[in-house]
Structures are given as C-alpha cells and as structure tokens.
C-alpha cells in the first residue's frame, strides 16, 4: 500500500505520465492550453474586479454620476472574462477526460491481447481475480492522475500569473501572498500524505466488514444450529469497531485540515486589508488594486489544492503501472513452427514418452505425467481411464497443445505439434474440456467461435451431439442468446453444445475430457454411437463403463504413468487395479445418479422441502 510520496515514486509517477503525454500529445496540449486559459482568466477576473472598482464604481460614487458606456464596459469585462474562464474549465475537463479514457481503453486492449497470447501455463499460475483487476482497476489507477494533471498545470500557470500580478501591484502585498500560498500547498500535501494511508485502511476495513457479513450469513445455518450468534456478532462487531475507529481518525484529519485550509487564505485577505490600508494611505496603491488582491486571495485558495490531488494519485498510479507492465512484459508465448497438416481423413496420434510437471516451468515440479507413451491409429477410439489426479486432463491439454510437455513429444500425423504453424493444431484437433465454457453470445456465436460454417452443418453437429432438439426449441433457435457462461442452460445442455462446437469443425481428432458427465446415460449412449460414424479418431477420457466399452483400446493411467493398455475386456481380466477402478466408478456413478435424480427433484420443489440447502 502506498504510504507516502517519496522522490522515487514521484519520478516513477512522472515517467508514467510521460508515457501518456507521448501517446496523446495533441489532446494533452489542448487540455493544458485550456487549463492555462482557466488559470489566466482566474487571475484576470480578480484584476477585472479591481479595475471595475477603481475605474467605474469609485468615480461614480465620488462624482455622483456615471455613463452608460462605463457601465457597459464594466459588465462586458466581468462577463467576458467569466465566459473565457468557463471555456477554459470546460475544455480542461473534457480533454483531460478524453485523454484519460483513451489511455485506459488502449491499455485495456493491450492487456487483454496479451492474455490471449500468453500460454495456458501462464494463465494457470495467475488467479482469475488478479487478471480481471489488472485489466480493470489497475489500468484505471494507472491513468487516474491524468484527470487532475492539466488542472495542476493550469494552477501552476495561475500561480505564476498571480505572483506577477501581485508583484506589479505592490511588493509588501505580494510578500503576504508568498507566505500564504506556499503554506496552503505544503499543508495540503501533508494533508494528503496523512490522509492517504488512513483512507486506504478504511477502504480495506470496509471490504473486511463486508466479507465477514457475507461469510457469516452464508454459514447462517451452522451459526444457528451451533448457537454461535453471540460469537459471530462479536466477530462482526470487532471489524465494525475497527472501521468506526479508522473512520473517526480519517474524520479527525479531515476535520482539522479542512478548516485550516479555509482559514489561511481568509487570514491572508485580512492581512491584505490591513497592509493595503497602510500602502493606500502612503499612496503606493489605489482602491481597485486593493480589491483586486483581496479577491485574488479568495479565488486562489481552492485551485491550489489540485496540486495535492495529483501527488496523492501518483503512488496508486505507479503500483497499477507495475502490475500492468508485469502482464505486458510477461514472457512465454508458445513457439510455433511452419509445418502444415493435411485436411482430410482421420488423424493419427502418437504420444511419445511424455513428461509434464506443473510449476514455473513445465519440465520441473512434481511430475503429473511421466513416460506416457501410446498411439492412436487413424479412425480408432481410445479411452483413457484413471482415478482422480492420475493426469488425464493434463494429457488432454497436451494433445491440443494448450501446454507443451517437459520432455517427450506429441505427434499428429507424425509431425511434432511444436513444428506446426499457428492454427494448425486447432484446425485438426478439437478438445471438449471437462468444464464446459460458453460465451455470453448466441448459440451460433458459441458454435462458430469466429469460423464460417453453413447452418446445415451446424444442425448436423447439433444432431450428432443430441442437442438439435433443445436448440430448435429455444425462442430464437440458433440466434438465441444464452447468457453469461451459458447460465440459462442446464449442465447437460451446455455439455452438448460444447460437443457440437467441436463436431462443427469436423475435427480429424476429437478429444473428449469427461465431456458428457452431465448428460443422461441414454443420451450419452446415442451420442457415442453417433461418433463412431464420424470420420475422426477419438480420445475419450471416461468414467462410465458403457463409454469405456465403446473404445477400441483402453489406456489405464495410474499416478501419471501408463499402468496398462489393451482392450477393456482384456484389462478387466488381467489387471486387478483396473478392475477395482472400473467397479468403484460404477458403484459411485450409480449412487451419484440416484442422488442427482433426487437433487433435481428437490430443486423442483425448492419451496417445498429444500430451503436451507
């Protein structure tokens, strides 16, 4: 958490601002010009008031007479300066905003581009929440100081102009200003520095209070059944009290500095009146100049604080910039070759002595897969069977080159997938992953994912995936939007769409990673029978006996190694480990089905029985 603005952060922050200025020099120039106009006209408005007092008001009061021309000139001067000032304010705000939003947009695009380029191994090392805040809150923090920056530039300009204006009027009066305004600026800086950490802490505590409430209400049943309401209330009250105390501390700092910052310029004006009266008596200044300087003091007090705002935003900006740069500079794109694959017929697959371990580098860390070696002849169906944690999903990811093996190789049609040009693997091999992912888009958009496939082929794929029935029943058919992550569909429907998505590209090798687990067994059987007629090789990770039985060959994975290969019946007979595994799965599967059926029923009767689940 940024505690204070040290020179290093200041330099780093200004460098970040430099990046923005180089990226948007034109908009930046406009916003600074507008700010300068604002600064200049602020000083001018005080001068105008002094001039009106001296040239229009006092002569009229002395002589008991005035002219329409003098009055018109005074009114025009007051309004004219104000209009110019208004233009300055509007321009400054608009262009500063435009610059900020353009920079945000540019960096959001760049960060997400980088996400799309970085390999899956990188994604697996970074939590989703972090990546989201890199593109959201962090990018916003980086460019937040842009908004007040032109204002600050305008203020500097204003101060210089004001200093010159007051110096031109009278040196002793100017000295008062030189005492008061730097004091305001320094105090404001101290204010921001002291407030910043406390305010950040309050923000953090507010999140904690919310977390405790959320967790406690979510565990309401446990709290109630164990009679822990008092303990929970105390836990919440502790956080609430911390928040209260921090807010009071914030309040004390605000409560002290706000009046001080208001009082200082007021005292300045009074000093000007006192000294001004003496100087007037001595004939050094006139009435108008006295009014001008007093008015200037009341005007300058507020904008001067804008300098503090930029400084206050800088530490957050620097932290955000470091996070964003970490994404943009991240290394590890998969290298590609130039080889191409054929486009017709089923593909052959060879997995050669593959080793894979999670960790910083695929080759290191505890091996998830070790010495895995098997082949799939074109057109054949191979089932991968293994208990939880045996490395099945990792193997599936290797087959479509989401990750590269630490040692060994994956070959499609005899070509190492690392030699293939970008898009080649995706063109030939389709993976239907364990966890279905659908986009907030239409059914068609989800099936195509940017490809161009005629509707008849889409429907054929949907038919094969046993999804044509429910898709044609959707209100707009293929053009129905299916909501975030496919929220409007059931688990089985989503899995069938994901399968259709793979089938629509007529893959030469289809990899199914437990892709039909939420589909009703009878429907699954129809799908699998249909798959046998497609001209593609299939690697299927399966639990269900019925699925396994459909495969030409089974690869039994145990703790990352191939424990056995052969036909299902053979393995059942010769391998006790395999037999136990398949039987345990079967039993669990049946019980799970019974439970799921019960749960589905329960969900339907939510109001009736299942209020607390």
């Amino acid at each position: 958490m940024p505690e204070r603005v040290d020179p290093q952060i200041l330099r780093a922050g200004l460098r970040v601002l430099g990046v923005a200025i180089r990226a948007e020099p034109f908009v930046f120039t406009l916003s600074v010009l507008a700010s300068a106009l604002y600064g200049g006209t602020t000083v001018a408005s005080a001068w105008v008031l002094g001039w009106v007092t001296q040239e229009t008001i006092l002569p009229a009061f002395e002589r008991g007479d005035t002219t329409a021309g003098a009055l018109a000139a005074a009114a025009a001067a007051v309004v004219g300066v104000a209009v110019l000032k208004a233009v300055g304010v509007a321009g400054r705000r608009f262009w500063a905003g435009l610059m900020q939003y353009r920079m945000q947009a540019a960096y959001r695009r760049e960060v997400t581009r980088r996400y799309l380029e970085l390999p899956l191994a990188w994604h697996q090392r970074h939590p989703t929440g972090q990546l989201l805040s890199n593109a959201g809150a962090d990018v916003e923090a980086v460019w937040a100081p842009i908004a007040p920056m032109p204002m600050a530039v305008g203020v500097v300009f204003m101060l210089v102009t004001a200093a010159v204006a007051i110096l031109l009027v009278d040196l002793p009066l100017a000295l008062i200003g030189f005492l008061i305004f730097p004091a305001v600026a320094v105090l404001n800086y101290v204010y921001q520095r002291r407030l910043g950490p406390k305010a950040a802490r309050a923000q953090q505590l507010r999140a904690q209070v919310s977390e405790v409430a959320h967790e406690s209400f979510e565990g309401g049943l446990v709290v109630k059944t164990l009679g822990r309401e008092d303990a929970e209330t105390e836990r919440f009250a502790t956080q609430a009290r911390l928040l209260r105390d921090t807010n009071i501390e914030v309040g004390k700092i605000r409560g002290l500095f706000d009046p001080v910052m208001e009082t200082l310029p007021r005292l300045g004006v009074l000093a000007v009146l006192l000294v001004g009266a003496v100087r007037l008596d001595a004939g050094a200044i006139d009435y108008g100049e006295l009014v001008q300087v007093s008015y200037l003091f009341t005007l300058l007090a507020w904008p001067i604080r804008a300098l503090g705002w930029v400084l206050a935003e800088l530490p957050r900006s620097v932290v955000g910039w470091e996070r964003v740069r970490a994404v943009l500079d991240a290394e590890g794109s998969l290298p590609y070759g130039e080889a191409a694959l054929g486009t017709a017929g089923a593909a052959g697959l060879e997995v050669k002595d593959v080793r894979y371990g999670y960790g910083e580098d695929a080759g290191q860390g505890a091996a998830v897969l070790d010495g895995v070696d098997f082949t799939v002849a074109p057109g054949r169906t191979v089932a991968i069977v293994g208990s939880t944690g045996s490395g099945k999903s990792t193997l599936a990811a290797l087959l479509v080159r989401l990750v590269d093996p630490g040692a060994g190789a994956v070959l499609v049609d005899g070509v190492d997938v690392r030699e293939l040009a970008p898009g080649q693997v995706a063109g030939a091999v389709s993976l239907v992953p364990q966890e279905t992912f659908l986009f907030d888009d239409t059914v068609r958009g989800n099936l195509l994912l940017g490809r161009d496939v005629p509707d008849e082929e889409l429907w054929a794929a949907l038919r094969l995936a046993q999804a044509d029935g429910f898709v044609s029943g959707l209100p707009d058919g293929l053009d129905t939007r299916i909501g975030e992550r496919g929220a409007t569909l059931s688990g089985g429907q989503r899995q069938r769409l994901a399968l259709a998505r793979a089938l629509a590209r007529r893959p030469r090798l289809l990899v199914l990673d437990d892709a039909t687990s939420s589909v009703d067994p009878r429907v699954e059987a129809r799908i699998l029978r249909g798959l046998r007629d497609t001209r593609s090789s299939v690697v299927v990770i399966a639990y269900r006996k019925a699925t396994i039985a459909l495969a030409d060959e089974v690869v039994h994975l145990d703790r990352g190694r191939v424990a056995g290969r052969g036909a299902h019946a053979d393995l059942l007979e010769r391998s006790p480990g395999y037999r136990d595994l398949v039987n345990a799965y079967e039993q669990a599967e049946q019980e799970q089905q019974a439970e799921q059926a019960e749960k589905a029923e329960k969900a339907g009767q939510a109001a009736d029985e299942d209020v607390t689940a």
Partner: protein
Amino acid sequence: MTMLNEAVLHEGALATARRGLRMTPEFRRGLALTLALAVAATAGRVVIPVAVQQVIDHGLGAPGGPDLGYVRNAVAVCVVAVLLTGVAAYLMNVRLYRSTETGLASLRVRAFRHVHDLSMLTQSSERRGALVSRVTADVDQISQFMQWGGLMLLVSTAEVVVVTGLMAVYSWQLTLLVWASFIPLAVGLRFFQRRISRAYLVVRERMGDLLSVVGEAVVGASVIKAYAAEARTAERVDRAVEQSKRAQTRAQALVAMTFPLSEVVAAVATAAVVVCGVLLGVGGTLSAGELVAFMFLVTLFVSPMQTATEILNEAQNAVAGWRRVLGVLDTEPDVADPGESGRTLERGPVAVDFEGVVFGYPSGPTVLHGVDARIEPRARVAVVGETGSGKTTFAKLLTRLMDPVSGTVRINGVPLREIAFSSLRERVVIVPQDGFLFDATLAENIRYGRLGATDEEIAAALGELGLGDWLEGLPKGLDTPVGQRGESLSAGERQLVALARAYLADPDLLVLDEATSAVDPATEVRLQRALDGVTRGRTAVSIAHRLSTAQAADEVLVFDRGRIVQRGPHAELVAVPGVYADLHASWTAQRGM
C-alpha cells in the same frame, strides 16, 4: 419472495429518517451543540465580505482620509472571528464524525445480529448479497449523508440565509437581482445533473459489460486457445472497450458543459450588481464598500447551488438505506428465542416426542400432516422416504430451525418453544448436508463446535471419528487453511469437518441430514463404523440417503407424503410389503447387487 417486513417502504421519507435517527441514540446525543457549531462555522464565510465593506467604507473612505486605527481594529476583530469560526468548524467536524460513526457502527451490529436471529426461512427468502448490503453499503450510504450531505444541506442553507440577510441589510434591490439570476441556474443545474447521473449509469453498465467480456477471455482461456478463437475474442473485447470509452467520454462532456455554468451565471449576477449598484450608489442609497462586498457575496451563492442536487440525491439514498436497514430490524423473528424466561435442558439422554405436528410453508401446501412419533433416549433412528416425503422438514422441526404450524415437539417432555436457545443449541445439534466452512484453518472450523477446545481435543475427536489417517495425510494438519466456504477441500472432506465440528460440540441429540452424502464410498464405510461408536449413548437421528444407514439403525421411520407410514427395525420392515420394501428394492437395483 422476501419475508422481511416491508411496511417501511410505505412510510414517508421524513418519518423513516426520524425513526432511523431514533435508532442511533449515539448520533443524537449532543447533536444540538454540533449543529450550533456548524452554523457558527458557516458565519466564517461572510466575515471577509463584511471586513472588506467596513474597511472600504469606514476605514479608507472615512471623512478626512483613511482612518488606519479603525482598519486595525476592524481587521483584529475579523481575525478573531475567522479563528473562532475555524475552531468551531474543527470541533463540529470531529464531533460529527465521532457521533455518526459510533451510531452507525452500533446500528450495523444490531442489524447484523438481527439477521442471525431471523429464522432460516426468512433468511433464505432474501438474496445473500442483499442481506449483506443491508449491514454494509446501506449503512455507508446513511453515513455519507450524515457526514457530508446532511451537513452540507445545513451549512448551505445557513450560508444562503446568512448571505441573503447580509445582502438585504446592504440593499434589498440588489438582493432580489442576485436571487433572480440564481434561480434559473438552480433549475438548469437540476436538469443537467439528472442527465449526468443517467450518463454515469450507462458508464457503469458498460464497465460491467467490459469486465464480463475480459472475464470470458480469462476464464475461457483454454477453450479460446483450443479453438484458436483469439481474433474473435479480441474483437469482442475491442468492441466493449470502445463502448465503455464512448460512454465515459459522453458523461465527461456533459460534466464539462455543466460545471462552468455557475461561473457564467455568477459573472452575469456580478455584472448586474455592478451596473445596478452604481446606479443605486449614484442615487445615494448604497455605499462603495457595500457594493464591493456584494461582489464578494455573490461568489458564496455558487457552491450551495452546485451541491444542491447532489445533496438531494444523497438524501434520497440515505432514506433508501434507512428503509433497507429498518426493513431488517422491523422484522420479528418468527422462530423466537424464549431467552431469559426459557427453560434449560438437563445434560443426559434425550427423548423426543412429536405430537400431532403439522407443517406447511407460508403460501405452500402442507408438508407434514399430523406426525406423531416418539424417539426413545439413546435410540439410533434412521429416517427414510422419497424426496418430498417430509423427512428433511422433520429434521428441521426437531432442531427448531422451524416451528410447526400446529402440534408440539417436545424434548424430555419440554415443548421446544419453551427451551432457551442457549440450552437447546448446546444439547441438540444438526449436521446439514452442505457442511459450510469458514475461511479459516481446519482446527478453527472444528473448534466452532466447542469454542474452548484445544488442538489435542480436536485431533482426538477426529481420531474417534476414524479420521486420524486423513488428518495425517494433510500436509499442514490441523493448520490446513480450508479456503473460502471450505473450497480448498473436496465436498466429501467438507462434510467430514462439519461432522467433526458437530461431534466436538458433544450434543445429547445428534441429527444428521444426509451428512455424509458426498464422502467417497470407502471412507463412508469407515465413517459409518466410527459413527456407530460415537453415537452410542446419545440419541441420534439420521436422514438416510443410503441403505447402509437404515440397516445399521435401531429403528427406521418411513415417511411418505408427509406422514410416517411405517416404523420398526430394518429386518422387520424389509420383510413386509410396503413403502420401505419398495425403497429397499429400488436401492438394491441401483447398486446392481
């Protein structure tokens, strides 16, 4: 459908605010002095214009040349006034922060406690996030109004009144003129600010869209890569980014146009004051100092006008916040703790009686139709039945998570409604199907069952449940963090922890509501054996999802369509045709045995 009291929604805004204030006595204490200080602090703003007027008219413009002595005195008085008002502002701020924060913290805690006191049924009628915001964001909204909006309302009103008064002393004609200039501004600002808040609503929506598209790019990374859909995703992101930028720019343009409006209006007012003031001065009804003071006073009108709409919005938000917080506090718990006047249960074996118990959810069909049952002390009872037969309802009534519509549930002869919660929750514990865990370590979660338990006792409890091996297999043992909602553990492991937690509470009546449904079959067999041991000597009621549970029980209660249709040991029940025999048959068929 919410079951919270919504009468407050039909209450007038002022009545709600008044009632809300009454709920926070800490805020009201000493409020009069705080308000007096606020008014005094506001007076500081007119000191300068008065000083300018006095110095010009009586000091500099004194007959026979400037009267420096007068100027010195006037300035000295004004310095004292400025310092005093500064001190008043400081005191007012500190008092206000302290009283609002203290008042709102206790309001927050009260509302939080009240949520826990509401019945399961009432709690689950609200979205969790909505309940949370009633003790967080809604209270924050009130606090923002009390610390800024409410104060500004007061200060601005005071400012406008004081400034107007002072102006009227100098010249009523010019006062009218200034008012005439600012009223159209107030109307115009309100118009613009409405459009601005609409524009910002769009900004927030677009930002939400943007984040969800970026979220897809992150969460769906494997699908995007497997299907080479990078270009398409990038295009979707670009579109969302562009739309978000456009919305931001539009809102900014509106702000940029609106903000300087008041500058121009103030200038027009000043110009009008100068022109008319000079004409009046020539006529002899206004002094030069008064006219110059007017030019200073006009600037004091700008900020109240600019903040008026914002204050109004905040006031509305605060009333809405109060309504949501009061909505919780106004709701009477429908399953209430008899509290002090309640009876306590003696430690020891527990017998349960259901007497003509009828239950139905509000505006729902009847779920239990007159259930009568006795569960003997130390009996181990399994409850079976189809989904919707009423067995979970039975468990909830038994533990007083809900009250029957009619009929009585008794424990050791005492009606449940008369037992103090502190005693009931100690003696009767239910392990629900979804074993919720807190984001803490394993030990802390199990200790939730008995707050004083040592690590040794916790480890011993796990050992007695036959889970010693499992514990040893965890790299950090009892210090293993379980993650949010226990998500670092598998569903089965979460149930194990929930079970250990309940076991550690050492209840006399243990109710298991399908408490081991997600545990893998091998572990469950072991667990079942261990449970056999630990439930010995206590009364235990298990809602059964597997045949083995019913087989092991002393007695089986068979529920069908809200009634107990059969009861007796497994061996007897399975031998006669009926609901149990059918259930048994379908279970055996499922297992393929």
